[in-house]
């Protein structure tokens, strides 16, 4: 849709009057159409128009580059504690539902399902989506039935006789909690905690319900542990968490430093000394600091934040932007076009003066 309208969010109004706010696709599209139409009808194919052609071509390229960026760019955050090595970054907004097979001592096997698949159809809210997990990965011989889905959740202790879930806190104490449905929020400073109550059945005996579990992205940041279960002597973990992007390399944080201006808490510089461990390559150290990001395999890692209490944890924003060269091309074209136009005017002016004087 061309007008800015986020699903579920009330339309923008100013003192009760609905104001249609045009969005980027509409505006950018119109600008591009305008450029193309004027080029088609107004510009002539002559030397006089060379500069104009190039300049406006450059502008069109810049508009396209913004579209490419919008469609392909991915921003995520990598949180590393000092000494730790990390090979993934987390999305800022998107969640994923994961089932993790913990039985392999060497590494966990993860089955990731986009959160959208768990969401019941908006036309038919009572519908329970059913997924055959084994189709995706043979390691997980389950059928997954979503019994309940929460776009945003709060939790409280159960009143007597209420259906509740047993969750362990990080100190291993057991608590009973009940999920409460909350209104989805769209504020920049608030988070939505998506939760799902899922039922698993064994693939080979679909009538038998293995159990019902609660997973929530709230557990990802709060001091709760995800729910676990055992099946055929294998142990599994169920989680909803921020979508993770994995890389071929590990980034290890050697040291985070926060320099302040003397006598103040005003930052002068933040820097992270990191070591890159990539398979088949030499281990190398580098420093990421203000205005000096690290570029690695098409990703840019820049210093975005840190743990302000311990100052021993860095937060690197990872930007993956395959179209990053396009604005430079567009920019160069605009520069070239303006120069050509200027020189053309200069020369015609000079020749006219020469004619006039002779």
């Amino acid at each position: 849709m061309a007008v800015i309208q986020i699903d579920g969010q009330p339309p923008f109004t100013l003192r009760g009057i609905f104001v249609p706010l045009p969005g980027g696709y509409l505006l950018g599209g119109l600008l591009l159409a305008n450029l193309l139409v004027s080029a088609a009808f107004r510009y002539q194919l002559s030397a006089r128009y060379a500069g104009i052609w190039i300049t406006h071509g450059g502008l069109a390229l810049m508009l396209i580059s913004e579209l490419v960026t919008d469609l392909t760019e991915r921003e995520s955050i990598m949180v590393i504690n000092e000494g730790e090595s990390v090979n993934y970054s987390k999305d800022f907004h998107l969640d994923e539902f994961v089932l993790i097979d913990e039985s392999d001592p060497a590494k966990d096997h993860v089955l990731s399902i986009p959160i959208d698949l768990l969401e019941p159809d908006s036309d038919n809210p009572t519908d329970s989506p059913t997924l055959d997990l084994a189709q995706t990965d043979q390691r997980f011989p389950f059928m997954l039935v979503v019994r309940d889905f929460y776009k945003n959740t709060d939790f409280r202790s159960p009143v007597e006789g209420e259906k509740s879930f047993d969750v362990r806190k990080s100190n291993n104490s057991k608590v009973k909690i009940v999920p409460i449905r909350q209104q989805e929020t769209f504020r920049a400073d608030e988070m939505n905690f998506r939760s799902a109550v899922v039922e698993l059945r064994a693939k080979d005996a679909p009538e038998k319900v293995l159990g019902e579990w609660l997973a929530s992205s709230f557990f990802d940041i709060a001091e709760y542990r995800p729910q676990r279960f055992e099946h055929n002597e294998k142990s599994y973990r169920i989680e909803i968490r921020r979508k993770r992007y994995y890389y071929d390399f590990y980034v290890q944080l050697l040291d985070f430093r926060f320099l302040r201006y003397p006598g103040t808490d005003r930052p002068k510089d933040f820097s992270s000394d990191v070591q890159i461990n990539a398979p088949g390559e030499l281990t190398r150290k580098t420093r990421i600091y203000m205005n000096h990001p690290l570029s690695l395999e098409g990703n840019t890692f820049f210093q975005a934040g840190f743990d302000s209490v311990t100052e021993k944890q860095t937060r690197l924003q990872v930007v993956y932007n395959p179209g990053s060269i396009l604005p430079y091309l567009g920019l160069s074209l605009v520069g070239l076009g303006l120069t050509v136009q200027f020189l053309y005017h200069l020369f015609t002016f000079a020749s006219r003066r020469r004619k006039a004087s002779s």
Partner: protein
Amino acid sequence: MSSEMRKERDDPGSGSKGRTLSRFIPVALVSICALYALSKLRPPSHDGDFDLTTFGQLPVQQKGRVKPLDTVARNALLVMRGKQTVPDGPEASYFEKLFYGKKSPRYLTAIEWFAELTLRPTKADKYKVFRIDHPEVLGLFGFEPGKAKYFSFNDLFHSTDIENLRKKQDKILKEVNDYVSDNPDASVKDKEEMRERLIPQYEDAQDKLDSLMAKVTQIERAIRSIKLGEDLNRNNQIDDGEDLNQNGKLDPGPDSKKYTPYQRNLGHLYDAVTLYDQLKNSLFPHAGVHLLGYSYSKEIEALSFHKEISDGAIEKLREELLASGALENESKLMEILSKKPKAMELIQADQSLKASKPFLRGQARFAPLGIVAPASYKGTVSIENGSDKLTADGEPLGEFLEGEDLNHNGQLDPEEDLNENGKLDQSHVKIGSYSPLDGIWRENQLREKLIKSVDGGATATLTNEHNGRDWIWDALFYLSFAGMAFLLFKVLKRKGSLAFSTSIALLLFATLSLTWIVLFGPTSATVSNGSLHHINWASLSGSLLESRADSGTGKIDPTLMSYAELSNSYQDGDHTKFNAVVKTLSEDFEKVAPSQWHDFKNRIPEHMFNGAQPFVTCMALYLIALILVFLSWLIWQEPMQKSAVGIACLALAFHVVGLVVRIWIQGRPPVTNLYSSAIFISLGAVAFGLIFERIYRNGIGTAAASIVGFLSLLVAHNLAMDGDTMEVLQAVLDTNFWLATHVVCITLGYVAMFVAGILGILYVLRGLLDSRFDKKTARSISSMIYGVTCFAVLLSFVGTMLGGIWADQSWGRFWGWDPKENGALLIVIWSAILLHARWGGLAKDRGIAALAIFGNVITAWSWFGTNLLQEGLHSYGFSDAGFIWLRGFIGIQLFFIAIAYVPKGLWRSELGSSLRRRQRENPVKASLSSENSSES
């Protein structure tokens, strides 16, 4: 009507006498203004015999920057009072002075007040330095709204009253003690009688004290409750970990808009009072009531024994007592102690100093001023360009390798690369040559690295011994500056006089060269900042902590003792001693600091700069020029116009000098914050306007110049209320390269937009109201708008794209649709719309003027509006007032656009009159043509 004829009519006394007069008036007016401006350069004199000038030049470190005390004093007064002076007594309004013969009180300069505050606070507590406007805040303190605006610390917190009551109680207690010790044999009855007499007095004082304290506590609680809800950290600064978003910009946060004006005003008052209280005890600890409910009496007591404590008298005493075995036997202990003079007090002082440790530690965290300079590192690390060598104490360190950084971290690491003597460990450093092509930038990067590398704690001082800097690069840059100046000269010469063109071209050359020298020249600021910039100075409490016998050096720093002596001699009125101590103190600082320490060297220029206040002078001159231009359109065209141009040129010269001095002091490109952007916009607009004046000579250029110049300086003047205008920069802005390119380009774009907008307003107003506004002048305005908008689109586009490249280099993305980025883009789009409307014939002169006026709205939004969106927490009050002003400004612009579309028939100028004439001749044809022309 030709302009010659009009001049005759304007000039009633035409003829030789009139001509002499019209020649004499501009000369006289400009001379008077020049004298006025020069008189402002005189350093301010101080009443009395105390050498407050030298006192004001003493260096301290505040908010990460070393500056003279004078700057601290002025900024503090601006934050508290909004002015740089304090009246000695009740102020009198003009009305009262005129009709009731009231006399103005004496006004203390900032440093005079600061001396009172820090050296003799009992008197300073009575100066009315806090400005309170909000009626509810006034009500909180029990003041009547509308009666007074300024209050003293005593008015707010009854510090003197509380002190007096405490003294009274002490006196009563002393009386009792004296009576008991003097009359050991007094009867029970006598004692009873005395108790009956004194106890009510004591309790009465206690009651009063309690009620005052309760009131003060209540107010404190009210103020604190507001502050506690905030997301600001201990130093009242923004916490970057939390409040900055991923672009390094301020995150508005959920509650920033929720503060009521009352809360904001109270918050501002809290900041002012805290600053006052902290500054009061920043040079010397004073007994008395403080906001924190603590008096420094213990420290004062301890300080008076500093000599004994430093000599280890305590340890000696302890050993002696141990040896004599007195510690086990109380009576024996008392006997020994009573024989030793001062021994008891000494022990008490030592103990109270120990007890105060947590307090001092807390104070050291909050201390506003570092007053003790760090001891200097003796060795030097230098870059020798000629040989491409880095040396430490004259020993070569190796060669730079192209594209490779100093060590694996990309930087010198103080912990790893400096050996135990604090010198560079050569084995860790790889150095190679760099090509002349990236010579200058590379060198600056290198210097930054060196500086960054040593400020982690090691105390190396960097000097830059320039033997054989690449002169060819300097030469190339100067040549290109000269080329630019020559081009400008050629352009101006076509229309203007030789003298004018030469001087403007020289001015351009001088400005560019000076900026070049200051920013990247041989005495580069980045290097010579050295350690003073990067190492903590000890604050009073910090130094006291260090001086403690049990954990620190056991010696009180001489700087502290000098300040103590200053305070004593100031209180005693002993100016000879005061002046001598100030002089020695100043010289001692010089000894500690090598001359190349940039901040340090600049404290004296900064002191002079503070006193001269060049931008205030400029503001006055621009206003005078503006009035003269307006007069020239009403009466006496030529002399008034000439005077206006002369005065505007004079102001421009002052402005340039002021800006260059600022750049020099700060060691940064001209625009680093909102304040400096306003100063720069003013300067740029005046330069544009005067160039137009030279080309068209019709007063329009000068009018535009002086309007934008004056208004923009007025904005700057109000922005200065927030405190230090040369503050250190946020981490992400700590790069001279992008500040010098991206920021300057964008700001010049603003300048061009504002000039175009003002020209548009002049077109509309004169066209509508001035019957002498002819078509030729109208066309000239239109050409000016066109020309300056071409500049605007170019500068804004280049600036915005440079910003995109900066963002891509820093954050991996070219464009983030951040409000400030969008603001810049709006300017590019709007000026492009204006140009295309003109090229495509969509808008004629009037339409162009209206479009240009709306450019003002766009530019003001981009300059301030986007900041207001993001600020909120950053500065109380400003966002409120800022929004009101911005709204007002936008409203006025819309009004001008509206009146631009008043039907041409009603225009009083030639633009409308020709239409009226035609209307008289042929009503039908005229109405058709009026429709055509109003389409534009």
